[in-house]
């Protein structure tokens, strides 16, 4: 087995290093979620560290593992401080400009977007609706026209419904791939990082579900059950 080539940044110029890193950064700059952005950046950049100094080799890896764990909902108190400390130490303590530059970028992200990181960790919310773990896809009952397109595209078969029925997404098996969003002409499929509005329990005919009537029927169901 022949190993892959390792990059040797120590032998490169500052400009070469900066060019490389800003290219990677450009690729992610449009990513609206800062946690996911740092995750993607650190995952790419850790693979390019020459790996000789601890803070760069283990630091970027730790950033990548940490941010991934936050996007998966396993963020912990103190994570932000760790990210901040690692990126600062990288920026002052790496042996070459590669580690220092990565540290600077990471530090800027965590400093500027501290609040977003906190929302991910404490409230399990991704306001940019990027971190799949925190978002739910649902069919807005008032917009769905019962075309059945989404049901057909959904690979894990998480959508129930049929011609002329309001479709329903099962959040437990939905993989948040977003394919249905593309397929849905009227744009009935929405995502949210907050709680999902009240939806029909079963596919009901299009038009039969006004928001308040659903509410009503739900309430009456509940009431009925209670009175039994």
């Amino acid at each position, binding site marked *: 087995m022949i190993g892959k080539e390792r990059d040797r940044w120590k032998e490169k110029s500052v400009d070469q290093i900066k060019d490389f890193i800003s290219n990677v950064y450009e690729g992610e700059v449009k990513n609206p979620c800062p946690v996911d952005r740092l995750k993607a950046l650190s995952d790419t950049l850790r693979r390019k560290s020459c*790996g*000789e*100094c601890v803070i760069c*080799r283990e630091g970027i890896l730790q950033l990548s593992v940490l941010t991934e764990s936050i996007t998966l909902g396993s963020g912990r108190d103190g994570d932000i401080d760790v990210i901040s400390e690692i990126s600062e130490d990288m920026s002052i*303590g790496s*042996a070459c400009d590669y580690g220092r530059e990565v540290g600077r970028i990471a530090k800027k992200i965590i400093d500027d977007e501290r609040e977003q990181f906190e929302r991910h960790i404490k409230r399990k919310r991704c306001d940019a609706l990027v971190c799949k773990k925190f978002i739910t896809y649902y069919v807005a009952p008032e917009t769905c026209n019962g075309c059945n397109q989404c049901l057909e595209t959904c690979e894990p078969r998480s959508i129930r419904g049929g011609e002329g029925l309001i479709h329903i997404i099962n959040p437990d098996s939905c993989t948040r791939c977003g394919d249905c969003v593309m397929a849905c002409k009227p744009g009935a499929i929405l995502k949210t990082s907050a709680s999902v509005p009240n939806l029909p329990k079963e596919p009901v005919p299009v038009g039969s579900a006004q928001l308040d009537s659903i509410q009503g029927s739900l309430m009456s169901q509940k009431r009925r059950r209670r009175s039994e």
Partner: protein
Amino acid sequence: MEKISITIDGYSLEVDPGKSILNAALEADLYIPHLCHHPDLPDVGECRLCVVEIEGGGEIRTSCKTQVEDGMVIHTKTEKLNAMRRLSMELMLANHVDDCTTCPKYLKCELQSLIQYLEVSTSRLRRTLNSVPVNTSNPLFVRDLNRCVSCGRCVRACKELRGVDVLDYQMTEDDRVMVDIKNHHSMEEEHCRFCGACVEVCPTGALQDKEGVLKPNLNWDLELVPCKAECPAHTDVPRYIRAIKEGRYQDAIAIIREKAPFPHSLGYVCMAFCESVCRRKEINQSLSIRELKKFAADKDEGLWRERANFKPKTGKRVAVIGSGPAGLTAAYYLTKLGHEVTVFERLPVAGGMLTTGIPKYRLPREAVQEEISEIIRAGVTILTNTPIESLTDLKAKGFDKILLAVGAGKGNRLPIEGADYNNVYENIDFLKGVSLGSSELVGDRVVVLGGGNVAFDCARSAIRLGAKEVVIACLETREAMTASEDEILEGLKEGVKLLNGRTFLRIEGLNDKGTGVRCQEVSSFTFDESGKLQLILKPDSEHVIKADTIIFAAGQKPEIPQDWDVPVKRGNLIATENEIKVIGRNDLFAAGDAVYGTHSVIQAIAAGRKAASVIGQELNGDGDIEDKLTNDVIPSQYLGREEGFLEANRNECMDDCYNDSSACGEAGRCLQCDLRTQITRPKLWIHYKIK
């Protein structure tokens, strides 16, 4: 060189320019944490533990990579620095197994000691362990990279110190970087020299010697060099082998002579305990250490004599009884310590078993004679044909101390009927007779009773004396015989017949002559709790082996004259304290086979050295018998890559002795285990004054 002044944590130091801050601090007994720094390796500044702040210097720097400058004011333990170090350590530990107690390096580990110093735990971080299987696929090392912290010391040791370049930072499948064998090859494929430098410098339990290769020894230099440790006299094997390799033959013989005055004899008959533990045998076969010794002894021009250290005369007199290797070695070193030594030997020749036990065909007498002459030249008086019957009389002749080195020279005769017929001999007497030239000893048919090396010496001697049929009969099976495989094969080749699994009932005879040995076959035997032999006999298997000469080769024990009045223990061995001082006597000492039973020439030499040293001390000296017979040649730490090094097979010596090129070739197979002892062992923080 002009010194410059620096201040570290408030301590003013005067240091040589050009030094790193780290070295300046460590030399001043001021600790700065470090892990990838090793005193013998170039610094790389990768562990980031040695960070320091320099007043007015702006950024934080690694002290191993920063040179001292005049007037520098350096801080090593600020809060920021401590926090940085802790984080670096936490990051390393996130990618490290967490159970120290199961680690072979537990309590000897630099990393563990640093963890303690920095007081870190991994709890804040996510685990990033790069689990890899423990690699034991090479013959000598265990590579458990789950304990590696990628400090790169092994990489630098192999590349910079040894020039072999087997190890490097490598990318894994998952694009992580780990320290491994280049190209993820096997060590053999990358031409590792198995020098052990990488293991030596590894601060963690990641690189270890395989269990059993090195025997624990309080003396680290011996632990690392098993051949030297196993040699009873601790002959510096790798040093003389290197001298042979480099064509410095006079150095080689001088090095051997630093520990033993019988190098040539040893070259012929040493039991070579060293070879049985040689690390090279894990790769293919052990070094031919004994043959190389013979080669060096063959080249001896005596240049070492000029350097032999003779201390001024003390006027003290020592008597040595017995001129075997133990007695003569002790006599030689006692003479060099300035004492007047007389050796008393009951036989007409000096040398003990070297001249009257071990047969000539294995040990040419000229080799022994020259070595004895050398001892006489050093000033030892040897009186042959002088048996000592009374120690009191001897003492009365004015000896301050007496050394009993009488060997184990009395053969055991089995207590069976007919054992005293006059053509029945004991091993030692028989061999002595052969050595002293009485060839009328054997008839046509010779039976030797016993299955050890001595039995083969008797049998093969009998063949050389003209016996037509020689039989070795013994209790043990062929596999369980104590004789060495070489001896058995040589014996068979020469026509010796083996009869295994026999017990001896009696010796049949006529008048005063034995005519045969009545035997019975044994299907198995054991020893009961009290050590008594229990036989299970094959029924109806009695038979007689016809013989004109019968030789008992059933072990031997010391012969202690009645009048001596020295304490003896089981096997008639002289009872001693510490294997030297005769119990209850302050003027009597004992050494060699007489103390522990028949062992080996080199053990006798080691015992003789120890006796000389102890007696020397008792005579109010320092007892220091160490010699320095050649200049130290500091061996090169550089090995380089060498294709074919691992494949080279042991060069068996076909002729009498190696020639220059075969000796050089064989010497070139040595792994030079001693090079590792030259590597500095780093101090731990505990050992610094200012921590």
